């Protein structure tokens, strides 16, 4: 697919982020930026602090040091609500769906920020509440259509195979119409075909909606194929940053992956 995307300005910038859990350092002094409309990959061996990095970016974790600059606004740290409200959506490494709900309801929850009706209006089920409900449903259906999961609409998410759950989680993130999407290992544990589909979806999202995408992925092939720029973390430190071809030839990276002693 020929890309017409225009990579734009820096939208999100993390600066000297350090994060530790009860003394255990997860990230130390990492800085990098993300540009509008690009697909930015974060790679690194297990325990390199990749997921923690995403969690810092959308305010799940609060770093001890460093700042997050989002759309020009410098923050000591993000908080999840602001992140979501400013259009950062997110999927998790080990699926974070609402197991007690159907696929449709799960995805509908992704619309909650778009619904302004008070609980009273919703209780009486009139006017705005109702309208918003149906508008959201339509949007949700578009995404369901987009991700080709029509056949499982009414299924409780618990009953779905892993690959489809990942898709549903992506759907939930997409219906929020985010400007930035953080994907934590979207293709982990998928078979070749599922991976191919997921790649297609990620690219399509980036193309059709111009969504900026930051993703963590282990499959090097995938990363090199779809990402514009790659950050490499190892033991919580940044050891590489640049376009795929450059990363491929980066000695530090190669060492890290071959597990050469530091």
């Amino acid at each position: 697919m020929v890309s017409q995307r225009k990579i734009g300005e820096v939208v999100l910038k993390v600066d000297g982020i350090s994060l530790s859990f009860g003394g255990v350092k997860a990230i130390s002094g990492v800085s990098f930026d993300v540009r509008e409309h690009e697909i930015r990959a974060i790679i690194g061996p297990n325990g390199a602090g990749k997921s923690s990095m995403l969690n810092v970016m959308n305010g799940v974790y609060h770093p001890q040091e460093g700042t997050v600059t989002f759309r020009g606004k410098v923050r000591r740290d993000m908080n999840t609500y602001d992140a979501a409200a400013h259009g950062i959506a997110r999927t998790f490494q080990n699926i974070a769906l609402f197991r007690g709900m159907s696929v449709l309801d799960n995805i509908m929850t992704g619309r909650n920020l778009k619904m302004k009706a008070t609980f009273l209006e919703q209780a009486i089920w009139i006017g705005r509440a109702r309208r918003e409900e149906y508008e959201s449903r339509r949007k949700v259906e578009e995404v369901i259509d987009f991700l080709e999961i029509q056949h499982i609409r009414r299924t409780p998410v618990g009953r779905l195979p892993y690959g489809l759950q990942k898709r549903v989680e992506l759907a939930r993130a997409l219906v929020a119409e985010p400007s930035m999407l953080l994907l934590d290992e979207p293709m982990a544990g998928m078979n070749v075909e599922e991976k191919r589909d997921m790649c297609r979806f990620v690219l399509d999202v980036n193309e059709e909606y111009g969504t900026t995408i930051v993703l963590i992925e282990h499959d090097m092939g995938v990363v090199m194929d779809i990402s514009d720029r790659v950050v490499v973390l190892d033991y919580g430190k940044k050891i590489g940053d640049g376009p795929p071809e450059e990363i491929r030839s980066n000695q530090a990276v190669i060492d890290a992956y071959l597990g050469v002693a530091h």
Partner: protein
Amino acid sequence: MLAGKELVASGIIPSKKGRARTARLEDPLDTFPRLLLQHAKARPAAPATREKDLGIWQTWSWAQVAAEVRALACGLAAQGFHRGMHLAIIGDNRPRLYWSMAAAQALGGIAVPMYQDAPAAEFVYVLNDAEIAYAIVEDQEQVDKVLEATPQVPSLKHIYFDDPRGLRDYEGVASLERLLEIGREYDRAHPGFFEAEVAKGNADDVSIMLYTSGTTGKPKGVCQTHHAFIVSARGGCGFDKLGPEESILSYLPMAWVGDHLFSYAQWLVAGFTINCPESADTVMTDMREIGPTYFFAPPRIFENLLTQVMIRMEDASALKRWLFRRFTALARRVGPEILDRKPAPLADRLAYAVGNFLVFAPLRNVLGMSRIRVAYTAGAAIGPDLFRFYRSIGVNLKQLYGSTETCAYVCLQPDGAVKFDTVGQAAPGVEIRIADSGEVLVRGPMLLKEYYKRADATAESIDRDGFFHTGDAGVFVDGGQLKIIDRAKDVGKLASGAMFAPNYIENKLKFFAHIKEAVAFGNGRDRVCAFINIDMGSVGNWAERRGIPYSGYTDLAAKPEVYQLIRECVEQVNAELALEGSLSDSQIRRFLILHKELDPDDDELTRTRKVRRGFIAEKYAVLIDALYSSKTSQYIETQVKFEDGRTGMVAADLAIAETKALPAAAARRAA
């Protein structure tokens, strides 16, 4: 034997025919666009088209459809499409694709629906043969195929797609949305243009060109006029009293004459609602939601459904299984009679009523057949058990007989007089005659105008008296019911001189759920042998229940247990054949189970899944020789095409099985 002497079915013909002929002059509703506008005027708000999209059944009223068609037509006109041109239509059943047919016809153009599952290579021939310049294509998948074909199709200039998904960066294609905008623009600029174009339309104009997948040679474009299809549709609607309140599921290939008659011609004639499923793999759920009142499917679909029912019932609780067995047995005995309102013992009627509450009605419901008033099957012979099953549970399933050349309109089974081994009586307005050769000849307004650019073919299929040679061999049985035996050209003779009707035998075989395809040989030989394709679903399930492990089709097909299973089926067929006098010599002596499924992509079947006998005979010559030798097995390698176009090799050492044949006399005594 009635052969040779003309038989005019049911007296209505002359009068009706007469009216049809004369009426046409002043009949204002003699083209499809006019019918459409008529509905839009008469019942603007009534639902015309539905499509399951974005989770709900999006509905378009007749007025809306008319508006869309108008815009499409104007758009096409603005883009230079004009009278006499061909418009290719490629894709699954989508409202806009149906509408574009009407749009093309409104401009005096000719719609050319094509089989969407054909590979690009097959597109090339049709696109060139029909000198296609304009194509309306469903989605990215189809667009890719068309674009792959275009280099070899110089005429093709304009391509429009319905679903923009993934196509935003494509060069040289435009969206239907855009075309509609252009159309509305053009319409505003040229008021009255559309009406004028529709007014120019003539009942004898060709309205549609359907390509016969033809069991031999290249496909031929069958040109049908508005009149032909409208008369056929009217005949059918009158015959079954179909009105505007009907609702039908449009899921069969649009390029198939059957779908064109039911989902287009009758749609516009009767003015009922057509419903397009969400996607190919949700057809069954969509069918259940819609609950059509009028249904059409080739036998294999009814067969798959029944197989599904059986498989799902296997897992049901003992009680349910017992109920099911108990009542289906009862239904098999009295169901059809009760459906035909024939007398039946009161006790049976009561029992059936109970069964209806406990089993039949729920079953019809889960199959989405609760509301069906009339269901038809055609395109191939249907198994008596299969056919009886549906009728016995209260589905008014009937057979019709026809072909692309006759608008799928030759014979219909009237309510109350349904037989499984005939295709019914001559439809209103149709004359049937059996040639000395046994071939079925038909004449009437539904006949094709011509084969496109194939005067030769046209000449040889329509004789001097205007009778069309169907190529089927048939006989009339009990007063006016036509019984089709086989393809005329396939009917041959065994070395013994006895009659050999391969399809007849193959169908008997295919009536077993375990057998998907069969090819019988024997013309000019001393005995009959056969290739078998097992039904993966049914046999696979059978194997699992018996804990027989298998890796795939080829492996399963080679299992001795499976051979035994199939042998039993074959010998049952032999027993039946033994009872049919002249055919008793056609009992199958040896058979083998093919190592691969016969597949249209390998040219072994037509798109409509008819076996290409000759082609198969060449391709598997070694196997045939083996069958007629004394060999007990034969090694073979075959090239196969996969869905994604790649090719590979399948090799196997095929066992050859012997089967018992009963002496005709003995069988008769047994019977």
